[in-house]
Structures are given as structure tokens and as C-alpha cells.
């Protein structure tokens, strides 16, 4: 299936080679696991969602290094250095997503049973056994939910931002994007390739041979498609009619979001909740279309040999070739739940994800890992080898004194500082709302230029280079270092976090508001206004610096900003400077 996608195939091979080498007893040439016979199911207890009955496939994966490594990866990275109880892991989250995904599927089956049975009838390849097909789809959604985060490395998104810059991974992301017809990131590339790996397939095949106990009528008895599972992980149904299954795993109101909103809030001790029961009561299927003018979906469905496809030409409102599809949707009467979910997400950005100290810790880790990648590369290591470092690293790698075999002073210093919470301090913080001074237009142009994808990295580099050169001038002990080394030594960087994105949420709301017929839902609950206001007033880009270099960084960053933005007024810099106390 990946013959036309060499970079994706290379990542998949890298993953298989890594698992084989690192865990020969599971994935090697003579594997011994699972050692003991396996029960067909077990009951797990989740601290948030309670009881869930897991199948042997799910258990076999959970009990393997593929999922076990997630026990040592914090769900919210280094946020525990700010919210001391936020120690929940990607493992708990993955099992939680499995539970929620399953409940969404069951809720859809209750509400839209006939539609789902009709789809199963059309697509069923099991001799017309509709119930069996429905059970298979359920099993595949659950597996996709369980495996969706297996691509994470140490401290989740901080490391993802680093390995996503490896050319091998960048190429694979571009290929996956083209393959499934929508933009996909590095973490999704790895999770997709893991689900498709021979390591997973062989493990499940062996586990099936070791089953004991009576079969239950609840269990699905038959083969599953790991291709379907992999596609659902990246938000693409294996058939247009099955797009709603992928929406359960990856969309604006997906099981992933429903779990992490509550889990992150609970883990951090924040009183944020939403009404899951009402969500499950309201969620339904919506008939819609998937436009496909460039033929990417057609190529995908052909590659996976999907049957019963009908690609229609432009007709009426639909001006592009398209497929009819079923999507996950929430109707108008779920408005309160939608409000709660949107507000929860906004609050979590404000409380946790964009908290200056969380950004400081994660930024420092990102700089440290970027330095490691640079040094591994200088030692002649290939992308393949470097990616393996990330596959093997978990959070403990840092607390065990991460050095990546490099013996580099800067890495050791960063590692020590993170472990001992010697975090950088904010120097300047600025956002759209700071543009009201006399030189406001210059600031508006600069902040907007940061969102031009083609120019952003260059702009940040120019700003950081100017800061580094000025720091060297101001601090004699930095003389002789490159500007990059000067910045690393002083813990100085310019941080541009990702703002919250609610586009998918808007698109999954069905219909108009109840009490104001024909008024779009988004007018009654103005998602766009709210989120734009958040980003305008509360989203900041920032300069950070180690405390020892804070005073010098105030001066150096200002000089750099003056050079790059042409903003020179002292009141502006005084206004955006972060004063202590």
C-alpha cells in the first residue's frame, strides 16, 4: 500500500527495525511474548470513566512495549512543574480515549442503528452478517483510539516539535498528507506507521494463537483490518460512508478531545467539566459530502481497494467531484455541551498549555533536544538513527541525566536545570492587544508576519540571531561562542506557541439555533468571536532567559526587536517587559 510513498515506507521500516532491535522478545525473529495463554477479555478501571471491558487484541497491545512506553510519557509534558499533580500519562489517556470512542460508537448505534446497519449491509464482506460487520467496525475504532498516541516521545509535544523537523519525517508527513487528503503532523505519521507495522500485526497474530476461555457474544470473532485502524488514527475513514468512525477518533469533537479536556483539567486540579452524558445523548450521524477535486481521496480508496464507491460529478451546490459521506455531528440542542467543551479547551490553553512557566520548561527541553539532534548529525548519524533515539526515549530519560551519548555541556546544563526546575524567566511578552501604541502598525505587521508559514522560521532566526550577537557584546563570558551557543548558554529564545484552533468544532455543529430559526448556530454561540478575543487579548509570543542573564536579555532582545520590527519607542518596551512582583 505504501509503494508510492517511499518516505512513509522508510519510517515504517525504521519503526519495525527499532522494535525488533529494542524488544526482541516481543518483536524479534524468535519472540517469546505473550508467554502465558491470554484471556479473551479483561475489565479495566479508569479513574475518570470507570469500567471498560477490553478485548484480547487491546490487552495484547497494552501489555507490549508499544503501549507500555506511554506509561512513562506525561500527557501534558512538563506542566507538572507548574501544576504539581499533572502527572497523568499518555497511557491513561489512550485507554480513556478507547473507552470514550467505544461509548460514542455505541451511542451512534443506538440513535442511528438503521443507517449504520445499512452501511454495514452495503460494505459487509462477511457473507451478509450485518451484526458481525458492525462489531468489526467497533473493534477497529477501539483499536484506533488505543493506538492514536503511540507516536509520542519524551514529554509529548515538546519532542514532537523536534523530530518533526527531521527531513525523513517531514517528507513522510507530506506523503501522509497527500495519501489521506488532509494535513498531518509528525506524531500522526509515527502512530499511523506503528499501526501498520509488521510488529503489531505479528504480535496480534501470535496472541490469537494463545487465547483461552469461552467466547462471549459481545466479542467480535474474526479478522480486523490494521489498515482501517491506521487510517482512522489519522482521521480518514476507510470508505466515505465510514468517515464518521474516523471522526470519533480524530475531529473537532473526538474521543481524544473529550478525554484530554477532562483528564488534563482533573490532573492539574482545575474545576473544568462538560456534560458527557448529554454529548452521548445528542451525538448523531450527518449525511454530507467529501469534495475530491484533485483525486486524492479517489487514489486512497483505490489503494486500499474500498468497494461500492460512487464518485459523483459537480451537481447543484456541490461544485466539485465528491463522495457522499456520513460524519459525526452535534445538533443544536447540544449547544450547552458544545459551549462547555469550547470553554474547557480555551481555559486549558489559558491555564496550562500557554502558561509562561510551562512554555519555559518545554521550550528549554525543545532547545536541548534540537541541540542533541544537531550533534548527532555532526557525528554522522542518519535521520533513521536519530528517529530511533526518539522512539526509545521516554520522560525518565531526562531524569536519568539525558545526554544522548553526546557529553555536551549545554545539554547537561539544560537537563540539570529542567530536572531541578531552574526554569527561564519571561523577559518580554507581547500580543495583538499590545498594538495600541504609536508604533502599533509595525507591531501588527511583525506579529502577522510570524503567521506566514514560509517566512516564519527565517523571521524568528533573524530576531534570535540579532539577540545572540547583542548578548555576546554585552556579556564578555559569551565571547568566542557562536550566536546560537550564546543563546543556549543564556537560555534565551523567542517563543511562538500554537494558538488554539476551533475550526473543526464549528464544522461539526449541525443546523440552526433552536430559539432563533434560520440563525446559524455560531451566531447564537459565537465560537469565532470568543476564540478570536482569547487569541487577541491573552495569546502572547515571548522572549525567555535564564535568571542570570535576564538583565542582559532585556537589553539584547530590545535591540533585536528594534532592528527587526523598527519599533523604537521606550514606552512600548517598558509595557511588554515582564516585571517581577
Amino acid at each position: 500500500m505504501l509503494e508510492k510513498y517511499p518516505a512513509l515506507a522508510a519510517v515504517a521500516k525504521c519503526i519495525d527495525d527499532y522494535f525488533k532491535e529494542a524488544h526482541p522478545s516481543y518483536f524479534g525473529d524468535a519472540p517469546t511474548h505473550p508467554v502465558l495463554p491470554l484471556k479473551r477479555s479483561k475489565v479495566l478501571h479508569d479513574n475518570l470513566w470507570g469500567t471498560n471491558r477490553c478485548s484480547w487484541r487491546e490487552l495484547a497491545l497494552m501489555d507490549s512495549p508499544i503501549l507500555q512506553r506511554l506509561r512513562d510519557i506525561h500527557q501534558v509534558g512538563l506542566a507538572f512543574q507548574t501544576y504539581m499533580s499533572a502527572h497523568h500519562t499518555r497511557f491513561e489517556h489512550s485507554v480513556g480515549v478507547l473507552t470514550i470512542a467505544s461509548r460514542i460508537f455505541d451511542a451512534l448505534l443506538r440513535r442511528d442503528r438503521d443507517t449504520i446497519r445499512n452501511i454495514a449491509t452495503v460494505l459487509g464482506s462477511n457473507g451478509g452478517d450485518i451484526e458481525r460487520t458492525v462489531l468489526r467496525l467497533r473493534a477497529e475504532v477501539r483499536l484506533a483510539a488505543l493506538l492514536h498516541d503511540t507516536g509520542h516521545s519524551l514529554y509529548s509535544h515538546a519532542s514532537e516539535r523536534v523530530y518533526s523537523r527531521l527531513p525523513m519525517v517531514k517528507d513522510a508527513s507530506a506523503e501522509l498528507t497527500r495519501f489521506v487528503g488532509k494535513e498531518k503532523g509528525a506524531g500522526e505519521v509515527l502512530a499511523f506507521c506503528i499501526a501498520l507495522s509488521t510488529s503489531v500485526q505479528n504480535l496480534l497474530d501470535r496472541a490469537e494463537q494463545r487465547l483461552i476461555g469461552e467466547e462471549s457474544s459481545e466479542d467480535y470473532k474474526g479478522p480486523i483490518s490494521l489498515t482501517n485502524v491506521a487510517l482512522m488514527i489519522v482521521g480518514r475513514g476507510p470508505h466515505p460512508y465510514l468517515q464518521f468512525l474516523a471522526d470519533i477518533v480524530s475531529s473537532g469533537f473526538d474521543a481524544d478531545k473529550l478525554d484530554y479536556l477532562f483528564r488534563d483539567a482533573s490532573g492539574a486540579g482545575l474545576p473544568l467539566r462538560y456534560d458527557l452524558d448529554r454529548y452521548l445523548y445528542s451525538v448523531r450521524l450527518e449525511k454530507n459530502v467529501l469534495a475530491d477535486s484533485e483525486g486524492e481521496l479517489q487514489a486512497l480508496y483505490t489503494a486500499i481497494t474500498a468497494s461500492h464507491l460512487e464518485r459523483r460529478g459537480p451537481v447543484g451546490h456541490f461544485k466539485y467531484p465528491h463522495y457522499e459521506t456520513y460524519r459525526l455531528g452535534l445538533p443544536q440542542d447540544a449547544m450547552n455541551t458544545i459551549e462547555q467543551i469550547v470553554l474547557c479547551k480555551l481555559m486549558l490553553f489559558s491555564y496550562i498549555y500557554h502558561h509562561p512557566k510551562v512554555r519555559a520548561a518545554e521550550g528549554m527541553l525543545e532547545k536541548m533536544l534540537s541541540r542533541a539532534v544537531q550533534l548527532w548529525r555532526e557525528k554522522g548519524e542518519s535521520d533513521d538513527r536519530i528517529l530511533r533515539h526518539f522512539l526509545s526515549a521516554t520522560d525518565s530519560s531526562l531524569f536519568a541525566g539525558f545526554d544522548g551519548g553526546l557529553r555536551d555541556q549545554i545539554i547537561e546544563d539544560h537537563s540539570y536545570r529542567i530536572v531541578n526546575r531552574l526554569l527561564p524567566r519571561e523577559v518580554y511578552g507581547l500580543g495583538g492587544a499590545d498594538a495600541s501604541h504609536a508604533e502599533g502598525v509595525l507591531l501588527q505587521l511583525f506579529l502577522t508576519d510570524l503567521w506566514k508559514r514560509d517566512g516564519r522560521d527565517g523571521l524568528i532566526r533573524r530576531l534570535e540571531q540579532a539577540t545572540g550577537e547583542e548578548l555576546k557584546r554585552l556579556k564578555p563570558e559569551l565571547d568566542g561562542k557562536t550566536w546560537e551557543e550564546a543563546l543556549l548558554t543564556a537560555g534565551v529564545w523567542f517563543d511562538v506557541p500554537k494558538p488554539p484552533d476551533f475550526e473543526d468544532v464549528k464544522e461539526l455543529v449541525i443546523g440552526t439555533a433552536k430559539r432563533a430559526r434560520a440563525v446559524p448556530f455560531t451566531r447564537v454561540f459565537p465560537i469565532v468571536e470568543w476564540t478570536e478575543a482569547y487569541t487577541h487579548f491573552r495569546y502572547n509570543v515571548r522572549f525567555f532567559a535564564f535568571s542570570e542573564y535576564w538583565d542582559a536579555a532585556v537589553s539584547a532582545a530590545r535591540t533585536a526587536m528594534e532592528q527587526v520590527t523598527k519599533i523604537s519607542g521606550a514606552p512600548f518596551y517598558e509595557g511588554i517587559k515582564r516585571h517581577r512582583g
Partner: protein
Amino acid sequence: MFLGDFVEQLAASLQRGKVAMPFENEGPWHELFYDLKQADWGGKPPFLQALRFDWDGPYPKCRELSEFLHALHWNACVDARNPHFDEITLPPAIEEAWSRRAEQLEPATMGFLERAATRARELFSNEAQLVP
């Protein structure tokens, strides 16, 4: 010239031509840029050919474009209080700043931009019919 630069110049041109530019309903923007990607007019900036669209709904959607339109708003380069975020307008100082940047454009690119503005005028005036 890249996507953001092109959007700025197009918005300045549309504002001068008093064309209402949609905001909350981004559909027409995406359709416009998909049309521009397909166009074979002279002076076409190379970035358009590489512009990436997602196929996950009734019309093609360019995330990069969506991201940039929102960045324009949250950084106050455009104003959208009218009263339901229906349309965007440019503050005079921004329009002037972007117009100054236009002085560096090649005549061929300017020609393409004019044709793009004409296409935008057609699409944006039929906004209600575009997105099912």
C-alpha cells in the same frame, strides 16, 4: 511572494474596490484560492501551485490560508466587528502599509493580482450560494 503576502495585497486591492470580504464563512476564500491554484494566467506566483488543500468537507480547505486569515484578525490587521464577524475591513494605516509593500511587485504579478481580485469579487458577492 508567498501566501500571506498575496492575501495582504489582495485584501488591500479589494478594500480599495469596496468589495466586502467574508470572515466567519471562510468558504469563499478557500474556493478563491483553489480557483487561483488552477488558473493558468500569466504572472502566477509559484507558491500557488504548491498550495495544499484538505479534502475533508464540501469544499477544498487550505489550512495555511485559514490560519493566516485568523492571524490577521487577532493581530488587529483587519477589523471584523460588523456585528457578527461577517466581513473584514482594513484599518487605513494597515491598508497604507500593505499598499507600500505592493510597490515592490513585478508588473506581471500585479496583473495576476488584478485578475484574482476580479475573481474574488465574483465569488464573494455570491457568498451565500457557495457553501452548502
